[in-house]
């Protein structure tokens, strides 16, 4: 965590993600759909592993419940 190129950027991001994920949950959207992890550009295997794991989490959740919304109801 302390290795951010921009010193504290990731800490700042983490705080916001903490709030947002709980707000999503409050609004009925699975908070697992949002994820923040820190992987350096030199850690390709970790990145791949992370993404694969994320996919494994996302697949059972299915498409976003908001996706069906695209056809707008007429006001």
């Amino acid at each position, binding site marked *: 965590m*302390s290795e951010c190129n*921009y*010193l*504290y*950027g990731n800490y700042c991001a983490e705080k916001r993600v903490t709030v947002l994920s709980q707000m999503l949950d409050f609004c009925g959207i699975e908070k697992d759909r949002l994820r923040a992890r820190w992987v350096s550009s030199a850690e390709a295997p970790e990145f791949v592993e992370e993404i694969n794991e994320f996919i494994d989490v996302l697949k059972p959740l299915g498409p976003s419940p908001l996706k069906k919304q695209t056809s707008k109801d007429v006001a």
Partner: protein
Amino acid sequence: MNMNDLILYEEPRIGVFVCDCGSNIAGHLDCADVAEYAKTLPNVVYVKENLYTCSEAGIVEIKKAIKGQNLNRVVVASCSPRTHQPLFSSSCAEAGLNPYLFEMVNIRDQCSWVHMGKRDDATQKAKELIRMGVAKSAGLEPQEEIESSLVRKVLVMGGGIAGLSAAQALADMGLDIMLVEKTSNFGGLLQQVHQLDTGGSARALLSKIIDDVQSRSNITCYTKAIVKETGGYIGNFEIKIDTQNGLIKDKVGCIVVATGAVPLIPKGLFGYDGETVISLMELEQKLKKDDLTARRIVFIQCAGARTKEREYCSRICCMIGVKNAMIVKEKYPLIDVRILYRDMQMYGTHKEQMLWDARGKGIQFDVYNPDNPPEVKEGKVSFFQSITGKIIDLDTDLVVLSTPLVPRSDAPAVANMMRVPTDQNGFFLEAHAKLRPLDFAADGIFVCGSGRYPATSTEARTQGLGVASRVAAILFKDKLVKSAIVAKINPESCVGCKACLTMCPYEAITYNRDKRICEINEILCKGCGNCAATCPSHSAQLCGYKPEQLLAQIGAA
């Protein structure tokens, strides 16, 4: 309105260059198919696949296309932006296109490398990445680079071998140096060392360098002096030094941090008492004074290193242990020398050879297990020898503990003053381990020697020279030209809430009392975007990464 602004009113004409990177990219995905796809994207008027886009021929292609096809945006889909973006964007500039109208898509590290063996998927992802890059590029705006003046003077903090070497090399180039040493003598840790791993005497090496440094007219030496304050920014740092003759204020263009590290004193470890159980550095002293009376010596490696409190490997202690063992054995062949180790860290061919030579000289090596560490009792070291499965008792009259180098106790204060980061062990953290090993993330501040990580004298010296070349690359330019990827605050919409101010890690933002808005110092700004993320009214925006540009990119995903 200048030429640059006119581009904003033109329809985007985007050129896309897809790089095979030999087989690095083309070996794992279908570049021709990707290139065909790129042709179908909005505003793309020209697409070219190259074997190596970064080659002379590839660059010529880009330049030719900018002129011939009247391109006003260029997208290169290839490797790491970190290494190649400067080349491509400057090539665009040479062809008359503002370099900030260039966008890079990473289809190597982020695509071919991570999806090896999945050709179809990798091809599909490359298409998607390019679609995103193209979407972002359409909204790119030309930027003017920022220029500022340079003070051709360098502050070197620390008079050890790294700092001395940096000062020497910088002086050779004709720059003015202020060399600041905290103690009363130059030489740092090397003053305690007996003989170098390369064979020569540490004292001889040091006195040669120190004499040379002290004789230079363009190096001002300060001993018993401490850098009190640093402010300003690259090219124009303002510093205050507390010297024996009072406080000195000056301006320098760059700062070199060569504050070194200290050997761990192994209090409480393996019965350390400073007499029969001593540290490696104390052995160096004994060798220097030639007062070695022991007949059976046991070295214990990793004493206080790679433990819970100190997880890192200090890297040089294996080599120093072996070096000293060999010095002992050469001088007193009858002394029985044993080295108990966990793993031998003898990097490089020279040191690997040392290990073989040491064995040849009759030095015995034994592995110990950290879960079952050697025990030091009076006149005896017992350890579990895994190969025989037995507890071995070694009679000994001197135990030498190879302890790691640890960060100086004042390192956090230095880090805080200069606003540079340290790693989890407390050593100074460079901007990038591979790509910018001697730079700090903050421009104009550099690091060398053991303050960064335990280094041998040869390495510290090399790093000192390396730092000198990094500094020279900045200070020998006519003026400082800085990337225009910085944040800007719209004075019209800023409400002066100061939220960005507290979020700027580089202290680049100030509050203007009269106008009641926040303002950015573009030289100090590193373009991290913290302010842009914080600003409630998106008045702070990062050039080249504005919401509309990023959202276009996300929208295309």
